[in-house]
């Protein structure tokens, strides 16, 4: 049962990541791969606030998420000033650069990682409490993204994506919307990160590299970019599937690469056969 809880918690955390990434890339059309770094920044911030300064964990989580949102502006503002393509490259540099920085910071555990992080809950019902919290948070995030993208604001985003020049000529500020979307998405990723930190109680800079970026991208694409439920489906499938594969009793030395090939193969199939993802509208519908 414990094991099932930990899988559910992972699914919840990845749902938040996928949904927030979907907001940025699926709805906002902003190509960035630095999502995991905002996860990481909030995770570290929250962990350290609690560990070194004694800030109560729920508050630390909140501050962590806000920190990520704020840091995202550092990335989005300069790059979007130039063009969307630059955001992609800048995001790569931003992510990897920050990982290097974290690896050199002693009080954050440096390259060996940060241990002994406080846990949000303790006691015998810990896992259940965590599971409920994370799943509720995930549902809230999905709902939030849905609300943002389907109301009046959502129509503005749509208009901006469809024809930015026209949009600007009508006096709407595309730049402000993009930066806001990016900040909200990154802040939500931060929320996921902080929850992760206080559940697993260990962080190391290697966990937030390009592999993570690709994983989240896969979840969004396979689930269906630009849909509300797509990220949930993507996160569920891509967290549960590797777990299921490990139970198939394949010789362990081939398991990891086979798993990887299954993932990436899955994405490629989807890209060509069903680019709208599992939940998206089939071409022609």
């Amino acid at each position, binding site marked *: 049962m414990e094991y099932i809880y930990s899988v559910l918690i992972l699914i919840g955390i990845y749902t938040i990541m996928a949904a927030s990434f979907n907001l940025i890339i699926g709805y906002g059309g902003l190509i960035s791969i630095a999502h995991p770094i905002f996860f990481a920044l909030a995770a570290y911030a929250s962990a350290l606030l609690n560990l070194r300064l004694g800030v109560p964990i729920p508050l630390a989580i909140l501050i962590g998420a806000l920190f990520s949102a704020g840091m995202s502006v550092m990335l989005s503002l300069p790059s979007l000033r130039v063009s969307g393509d630059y955001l992609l490259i800048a995001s790569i540099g931003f992510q990897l650069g920050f990982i290097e920085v974290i*690896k050199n910071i002693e009080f954050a555990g440096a*390259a060996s990682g940060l*241990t002994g992080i406080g846990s949000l809950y303790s006691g015998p019902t810990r896992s259940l409490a965590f599971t409920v919290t994370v799943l509720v948070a995930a549902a809230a995030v999905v709902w939030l993204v849905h609300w943002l993208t389907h109301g009046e604001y959502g129509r503005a985003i749509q208009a901006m994506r469809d024809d930015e020049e026209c949009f600007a000529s009508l006096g709407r500020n595309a730049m402000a919307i993009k930066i806001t979307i990016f900040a909200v998405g990154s802040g939500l990723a931060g929320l996921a990160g902080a929850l992760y930190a206080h559940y697993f109680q260990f962080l190391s800079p290697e*966990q937030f590299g390009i592999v993570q970026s690709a994983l989240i991208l896969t979840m969004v694409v396979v689930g269906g970019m630009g849909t509300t439920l797509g990220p949930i489906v993507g996160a569920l499938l891509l967290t*549960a599937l590797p777990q299921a594969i490990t139970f198939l009793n394949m010789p362990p*030395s081939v*398991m*990891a690469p086979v798993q990887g090939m299954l993932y990436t193969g899955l994405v490629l199939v989807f890209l060509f056969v069903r680019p709208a993802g599992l*939940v998206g509208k089939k071409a022609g519908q």
Partner: protein
Amino acid sequence: MNQNVTRRAWLRSLAVAAAVAAIGTAGSAAAQQTLKFGLAMPLTGSQSSYGKDQIKATEWAVADINAKGGVNGKKLEVIVLDTQADPTVGINAVNRLVNVDKVPVFVTAWSAVVKAVAPIANREKVLELSIGANSPDIAKLGDYVYTAFPLADVDVAALANYTFSTLKHKRVAVVYINNDTGIEAAKVYKSVFEKAGGQVVAYETYDPKATDFTGMLLKVRTANPEFIHLHGLVSDMPIVISQMRQLGMQQRVSTYSGGLNQQMIEKAGKGAEGLIVTSLAPNAQQNKNVGPYIERWKKAENRIPNGLPYTQYLYDAAYLVAALYEYVENNKLPATGENMRKALLAVKTFELPMTGRLVMNDDHTVRKPVNLVTVKNAEFVPLATVE
């Protein structure tokens, strides 16, 4: 239309999740009669050449123990899961071992993994035995985390003292890889060497992904050390050494037991002559079981194992666990993590076949004599032993 698509997608995902649960519980229902323990090691990833050999050693030991009747007639069983030497994968693997396979004790290595899974061991009250990782922090990871392998403050310290007292070098340079392996060991070396009275004239690091160490090595060269301690991985150390030699630096080099690998000699060529490597396990002269063990490897795999000393410890790991189970069985205690820990502290001193006597100290660590090995004529030969 959209609704149908969504519903299908939901059903698909739920089916997968249900399958996971079904297979998972079915798997753990089988085989309750064996004495289980977990082994979380890198089967894939950049460290797999060590991980796989270590796993093999443990599996051999388990087979040997069972061939002689097991523990009180019951068979020992090792459950192996891949960690890729990666903390996230490691957490997942140990979660499985603890919550699905319900092992009361597990063995793991690689400092990042050992630290990452410590919270699980402490929370679930399952005994974590770190065997092979050497970060000094491991001693303080919690009530349920013990190391059966000496930490860096044993072998690196021995090396530093040997270099100062016996080799009589007063000025050394420390070059280390910028990750958890290198950073902590380098700190230990520096503090021990300076405490002995020596001077660390250069203290430089390099990126794990770098291939050109010229600038950094030139800085070391300018400091004019008499001796260099290098602490990295087999993927980079030979390159560092060969570039060192090419820049005209002929100082002798020492490294830790991770360098006890044929690739060091192959890739660095003549530059590896005189290299001093530590080994924390007894060699064939010191322990009569080691010779036949090496022969067994040569027959089965046509080579000596990667990181021979580590594999000796992992072989003994099975015997260590067997001893814990024996205590628990003899005292009619249920095989829980708590009792395994109790067993460890009660028995305290173990006589193990490949590594000799192991004494678990109260501070969760063990101390062992350090063998020093050097490269002479492209071969590893014994040099000295430091208690």
